[in-house]
């Protein structure tokens, strides 16, 4: 069984994002990049399936330019030297992909999964830049495969997946679905391993194939800005909060004052 893992490089979660221009969006020139943290759960899950001899091969996919290769190598470096880890990566890169909306990105990834012949796609539940949580389920629909989102426990057997996912009120839903399928991973599924030095050395020699629209058999008109159904603009930083008030005095008086303020001034009780 071949497992495909989708990754995206994103600004690190501790990055400061500044919006200097309402139309061009945030200035990302100074941020530190990392593999989207939810995608790390997907890579770890794939490697665990490989170590359990359920997955025969793991391939990493990313829609990005050559500047994304460093983070692709980070993903390739996970696993045990000579025993597990992705065998290669596929970078989906074409000027025609510029300006794609989620559906365009999903079309690109779906075409790549078909071309590579994967049986299960694992991807993070959302990327922490766009925060849309759309691409994996869209990819599944385009492929005509079922999907399960936000999985915190997973059992894979030939032809079948059993998955647990958090739903409202602390409940966990248990679902079963056949392969091929798309699964999105949530925190709690596993603890991603750190790459080892031998893993990092090995990752440098793993191939990163580059595929463009023609290689994928994609109509360039079905992706990119011209095919997008949504446009994004008028960026702004988060609204400023009015300055707060510090409550001072002994414990008994501040807690009493707080309850009064919450009830009578803020009217939230």
């Amino acid at each position, binding site marked *: 069984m071949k497992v495909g893992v989708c990754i995206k490089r994103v600004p690190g979660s501790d990055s400061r994002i500044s919006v200097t221009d309402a139309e061009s969006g945030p200035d990302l020139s100074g941020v530190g990049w990392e593999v989207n943290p939810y995608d790390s759960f997907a890579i770890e899950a794939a490697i665990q399936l490989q170590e359990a001899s359920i997955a025969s091969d793991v391939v990493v996919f990313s829609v990005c330019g050559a500047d994304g290769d460093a983070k692709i190598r980070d993903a390739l470096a996970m696993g045990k030297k000579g025993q597990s880890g992705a065998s290669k990566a596929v970078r989906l890169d074409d000027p025609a992909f510029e300006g794609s*909306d989620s559906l365009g990105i999903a079309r690109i990834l779906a075409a790549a999964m078909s071309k590579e012949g994967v049986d299960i796609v694992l991807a993070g539940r959302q990327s922490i830049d766009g925060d849309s949580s759309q691409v994996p389920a869209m990819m599944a629909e385009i492929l*005509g495969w079922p999907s399960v989102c936000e999985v915190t426990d997973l059992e894979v057997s030939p032809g079948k997946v059993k998955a647990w996912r958090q739903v409202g009120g602390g409940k966990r*839903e248990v679902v079963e679905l056949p392969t091929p399928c798309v699964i999105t991973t949530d925190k709690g599924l596993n603890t991603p391993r750190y790459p080892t030095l031998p893993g990092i050395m090995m990752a440098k020699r793993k191939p990163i194939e580059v595929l463009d629209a023609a290689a994928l058999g994609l109509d360039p008109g079905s992706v990119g800005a011209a095919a997008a*159904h949504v446009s994004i603009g008028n960026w702004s930083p988060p609204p400023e909060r009015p300055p707060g*008030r510090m409550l001072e005095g002994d414990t008994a008086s501040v807690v009493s004052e707080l309850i009064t303020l919450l009830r009578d001034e*803020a009217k939230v009780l």
Partner: protein
Amino acid sequence: MSNGILVVCEHENGTPKKTAYELLSKARELSASLGGDVSALLIGASTTEMLGEYGAATVYTVEGADFDAGGPGAWVSAMSAAIAAANPAVVLGSTSDRTRAAFPRLAARIGAGMASDCTELFVDGGAIVARRPMYAGKASAEVRFSSDVALVTARPNSFPGATASGSAVGSTPLDAQLSDLDAAVKIVGLEEPKSAVVDLAEASRIVSGGRPVDSAENFDALIRPLAAAMGATAGASRAAVDSGFAPHSEQVGQTGKVVNPSLYIACAISGAIQHLAGMRTSRVIVAINKNPDAPIFEHATYGIVGDIFEVVPALADEARKQGISA
């Protein structure tokens, strides 16, 4: 020509959720300038009366064994049937585990643009415009649509103050059939938590604890009783969850839940950027922290510099004394 707004209403055992009323009320306001009717869709229930009072002119229902469990394929199939019946310009749902699974599949099926987890909606030039946070709330932007149908999910509690002004309506049952693809995901079980809790993402009051709480026992002895006394749901910082004081389902922040309550009480939470990402849109923020320089105070509506082991039990006692209710 597509026209009007279809609101996909969620329910708990047949009773529509608060989010359903929020969205219907907002849809009614938007439809005044967008034009067209407001319709509602209930999947796996037929308790329609109140939905009419909050703004739905028509309430479509889809019921049956295939639909009652609410799997993603059932939702896509039911929503497709409702779109065929209502021909809406906008399909509006609430951000949830259901909509995250189903709305993107629907978007791909019908070739529609989608905006997730929006916090503002308005009409400009006769078309819907959505504003949504990105980069975990460090920035936001407007989304405009060029497809016939716009799919939108909205963050719970974004449109407070839902009011009933219409009249009850009956149900318009729709006949929807599951394709093999839509029937492929089977829900085979539902594991209940030890105690029933309000979904953090939809909670209107939250009390959260950070790492200085120091143990799961202290979390149960300090944070949960304050939450109970305030009629609130308990939450935790990533540091507290990673230390094992609270389950991951209670984590607020960038790799946990994004919450939007009217009241958020942060107990011994310093205010790391990843935590702020999950709660910065809270209407009122209370910070209780020993360190007067903790960044959380820059975001707090009310701040108390003090030891949580002293302030939190005193606050819980005061809330009980003053008879605070949910």
